[in-house]
């Protein structure tokens, strides 16, 4: 795809994880540096010249698709967006997402996230059929969540999943963004508060903000998705005064 004209004397060594979920090791590869080179470029060079079977997932190479997620020097990042020159003289260690099982080399099995998305009910339930009449100021709030590229870096860094392994109890920040997107849609009529309180487990999040820090799309996951959802759960499950007011406001059943 691009010229691989190596600048004489300008080489970098990348330490790339090779192996699977059970065993593996870092392998050092020398890569000639090209201006503006990103980690994914370097991995492509390694594939073309040294290790044709080096497994790495990628698609658009423009940070739009969220495929090339991994960990560089222990930080969750997109390979296509991480430039080699940002590391100065530091070593570069390239690893797969390690919250999920490693299939091979830099590819992890992220199917768990898609399975949770299948369990997300109710889906979008609009109040009226389209065409909708909505103002820009009304949709701005959910458009932020629609920026999500499903790279799962937030899932990778979330300690509830990563360290405590509570995959059966908490769906992770990415699914919280997805739920927020439905929950706060100005046309939506359904409520997902009970789901959040039970299976999706928003109560397990302790708002440590790590997910927000790694989001390549700059979505304010903690502030705009998770905390507002926690407050909605509090409305329903932790606020006796609100519950009492709801009971008062609920229309009395009229006898026919």
């Amino acid at each position, binding site marked *: 795809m691009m010229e691989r004209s190596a600048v004489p004397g300008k080489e970098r060594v990348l330490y790339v994880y090779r192996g699977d979920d059970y065993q593996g090791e870092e392998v050092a590869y020398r890569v000639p540096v*090209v201006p503006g080179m990103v980690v994914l470029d370097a991995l492509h060079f390694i594939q073309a010249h040294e290790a044709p079977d080096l497994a790495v997932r990628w698609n658009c190479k423009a940070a739009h698709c969220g495929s090339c997620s991994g960990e560089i020097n222990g930080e969750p990042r997109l390979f296509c967006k991480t430039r080699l020159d940002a590391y100065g003289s530091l070593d570069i260690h390239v690893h797969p997402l390690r919250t999920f099982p490693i299939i091979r080399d830099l590819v992890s099995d992220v199917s768990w996230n898609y399975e949770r998305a299948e369990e997300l009910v109710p889906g979008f339930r609009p109040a009226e059929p389209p*065409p909708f009449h909505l103002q820009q100021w009304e949709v701005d709030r959910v458009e932020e969540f629609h920026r999500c590229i499903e790279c799962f870096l937030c899932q990778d860094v979330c300690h509830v999943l990563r360290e405590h392994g509570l995959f059966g109890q908490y769906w992770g920040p990415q699914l919280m963004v997805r739920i927020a997107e439905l929950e706060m849609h100005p046309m939506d009529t359904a409520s997902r508060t009970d789901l959040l309180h039970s299976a999706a487990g928003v109560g397990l999040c302790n708002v440590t903000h790590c997910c927000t820090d790694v989001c390549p799309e700059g979505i304010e996951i903690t502030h705009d998705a998770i905390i507002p959802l926690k407050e909605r759960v509090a409305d329903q499950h932790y606020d006796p005064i609100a519950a009492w007011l709801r009971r008062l406001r609920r229309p009395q059943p009229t006898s026919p």
Partner: protein
Amino acid sequence: MTAAGGQAWETLRHDVLVIGAGGAGLRAAVAVSEVGLSVGVVSKSLLGKAHTVMAEGGVAAALGHLDAEDSPDVHFRDTMKSGHFVNSARMAELLTAEAPERVWELERWGAVFDRTPAGQILQRAFGAHSYRRLCHVGDHTGKELLRTLQNRVTQLGVAFYPEVIVTRLFRDDSGMAGALAYRRVDGRFVLLRAPAIVLATGGWGRVYAVTSNSWESTGDGTALAFAAGADLMDMEMVQFHPTGMVWPPGVRGLLVTEGVRGEGGILLNAQGRRFMADYDPKRMELSSRDVVARAIYQEVQAGRGTPHGGARLDITARGAAFISRKLPSMRAQFLALADVDITREAMEVAPTCHYMMGGVRVDPDTCATRVPGLFAAGEVAAGLHGANRLGGNSLADLLVFGKRAGDAAARFAAASVHLPVVAASEIEEEVARVLAPLRQPLGPSPYGLHSALQEVMTRCGGIVRSGPGLQNGLQQVLEMQERAARLAAPGGTLYNPGWNLALELDAMLLLGEAILRSALERTESRGAHYRTDFPEEDAAWGKQNVVITRDRGGSPSLRTVPVAAVTPQQQRVLAPLTQDVTGRAPS
């Protein structure tokens, strides 16, 4: 589980199999699922990663929210004119008539478009569209569209098989029998049995060195269809998007959305001249893509290019706040990858291979190929765009023809009485073929052959072509096809990209050959197809499409077929254009 030659395969069964999980594939799957049939979708990638996410500008639909004069008829005229009249009028008619309904449907499924002050879907101007027509969400419309369809198929419970690569289709004379595929994540083979198959595999931009396309765009589906007996059409029509990134080298070819020009960006050469005034003074930067792409190419050839061989695209005049709101992804892309802040500096851009107008020849109404039970929709199909695609029409294409293909495949599957059996020997033979590169001890590297192909295609079959160049390129591609038989891909079957590329190269080499042969055949210049030895449009060629059929020996054989006749009704809609051609002012 059935075993063959040490390799086992699993068998799965669906009423309809959809190959490809971009916009067209998912829309087809929704259509099938909604009538209650079982549908399986296979994809080379994960769900929601298809190349559709890269579509930035918007989806063209004549809603007339900002310009009340707009209508499906005007959209139809624009589409036909842009396609230089070698496109299918029926497809253009269906597209323009049905696009609005398809867009509103997305809204019902949860898509959120930018809004007008009246609360309707906002539409933006785009190259060669008469009116502001592209419904959009900032500059990530494709992602919104794909995500909406993804959520829809998830809700409908469509069976989805991620990271599965189909290598062969099986059929008999009454319909499809199924497809053989392997799963990247465990290297296992799967036989997906279905009487109807929808191909939605997208394009093959990866045959070119500079392309906006993702790794998936290798044309596997087109090659599968051809091998199964379908015809290919308009293969010479390759769209080069005028504005791809140029620098740094790693991002060369990466798309810079036409939305930049739609929102007011201007093109300047190295001397600071707004050169589009010399090529299309009326439409300037918003001229059709082939014109703008060639203009940039010619400026660079004439020595008026930027240091890295491109033109400057400048939108700084619109101000930082506007740019950040309307083009957030572009701003982020240039900041992160090129150290350029587009709110303060111009971008450096040059043409990049973007879209294949040609592909599998289909019936306009049903997307059916010549092979019973095989349907094709989206970029893989030919006919809608003719010699040049209008920006925004591809997303509309996905929705309109994805649905039509799904509907037709569902009807076919419901009516089919028997599912042809696939002989175990056929599967064993295919498994052996697929595994061959792994068992080859020594041979050329697929990566090397791929770059060689890309180099030849870019040099000989690129934005400007000539008879001798095409001939020379064809010779080289044919030689590469011989080399491809000996490709060696070390490693195992588990997520092995080298092996994968070796298999994809079969498709890319075939499609490279098809592009070069068709380009040689069309001895004129029309739309995206430009030949220095025949630089003018030829009226006679304006009535012909180049079609490639697989002959008995399996080789491609070319013929020309007349462009489908325009109905009197369509003729009436097109009338203002013919007046334009004869020198009178357009309406």
